């Protein structure tokens, strides 16, 4: 399935993601990682460390609706993966980001931007692993 190349929209989206990461550090002194925010909202350590995460998740949920105000429609979501791949994939993502202390936003944006060696290693490993997985499922198994 071919998808349209969208350099401008993707760059603008990236700039906004970066802006959010900078604001969170500047204002609250926290790394913006989707995994960490979610994980801490689900299983908080301290009660006063819980509410800001939930508020941020609510903000995230509102994002697509704000997008709709400008674009006239919700963002396009087309899912080539089967329900089984979503289930197994979701489980593996959950295990992996917890063991690996971060995902695309935590390591891939914030970690790289602050020159963390652990994040460079994590990004190199997960990018390679994703390329190999897509190659195997698409081209060897034909899913």
């Amino acid at each position: 399935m071919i998808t349209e190349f969208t350099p401008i929209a993707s760059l603008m989206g990236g700039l906004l993601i970066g802006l959010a990461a900078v604001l969170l550090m500047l204002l609250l002194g926290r790394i913006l990682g989707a995994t960490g925010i979610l994980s801490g909202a689900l299983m908080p350590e301290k009660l006063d460390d819980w509410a800001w995460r939930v508020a941020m998740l609510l903000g995230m949920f509102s994002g697509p609706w704000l997008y709709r105000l400008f674009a006239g429609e919700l963002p396009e979501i087309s899912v080539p993966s089967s329900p089984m791949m979503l289930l197994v994939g979701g489980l593996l993502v959950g295990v992996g980001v917890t063991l690996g202390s971060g995902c695309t936003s935590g390591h891939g944006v914030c970690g790289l931007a602050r020159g963390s060696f652990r994040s460079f290693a994590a990004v190199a490993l997960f990018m390679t692993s994703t390329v190999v997985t897509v190659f195997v499922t698409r081209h060897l198994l034909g899913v």
Partner: protein
Amino acid sequence: MKLLVSYLVGLIFGLGISLSGMANPAKVINFFDIAGAWDPSLAFVMGGAVLVTFIGYRWAFKRARPIMGETFQLPGKTRVDRQLASGAIIFGIGWGLAGFCPGGALPVLGTGLSEVWLFSAALIGGIVLTRLVLSAINGATRSGKVSNINEVINGSNS
């Protein structure tokens, strides 16, 4: 005030994700499908986000402390260990199978799409399960020092 700020940061992030295409698994998988229908769009997402964050962090870190907090809470770990490496590899396999990463899927939960909910439920299951197992292992090996896992999870780059 802190909650309003958090909400607005989440809103900007969610808008950015919506605009970027990160919430669209077809696009994400095509980015990684170098041998097939390659769509390089997501390189622009990463490039733009890292550029802004790189510049913005340098500016933010000139301050002694965040505007509304005591300290900048940065991960203290520097060593690449087996746990980080295996976690990153497992994450990549899951990302390649599903096409969603946490930051891509969470903002679009409100669209009510069943695929997003299925992925997110499995994601939450994986996170909770792993944290319970890690915390049990830590509790067993270092009784009385269970707080270690909390540093691993919340003091990290997640």
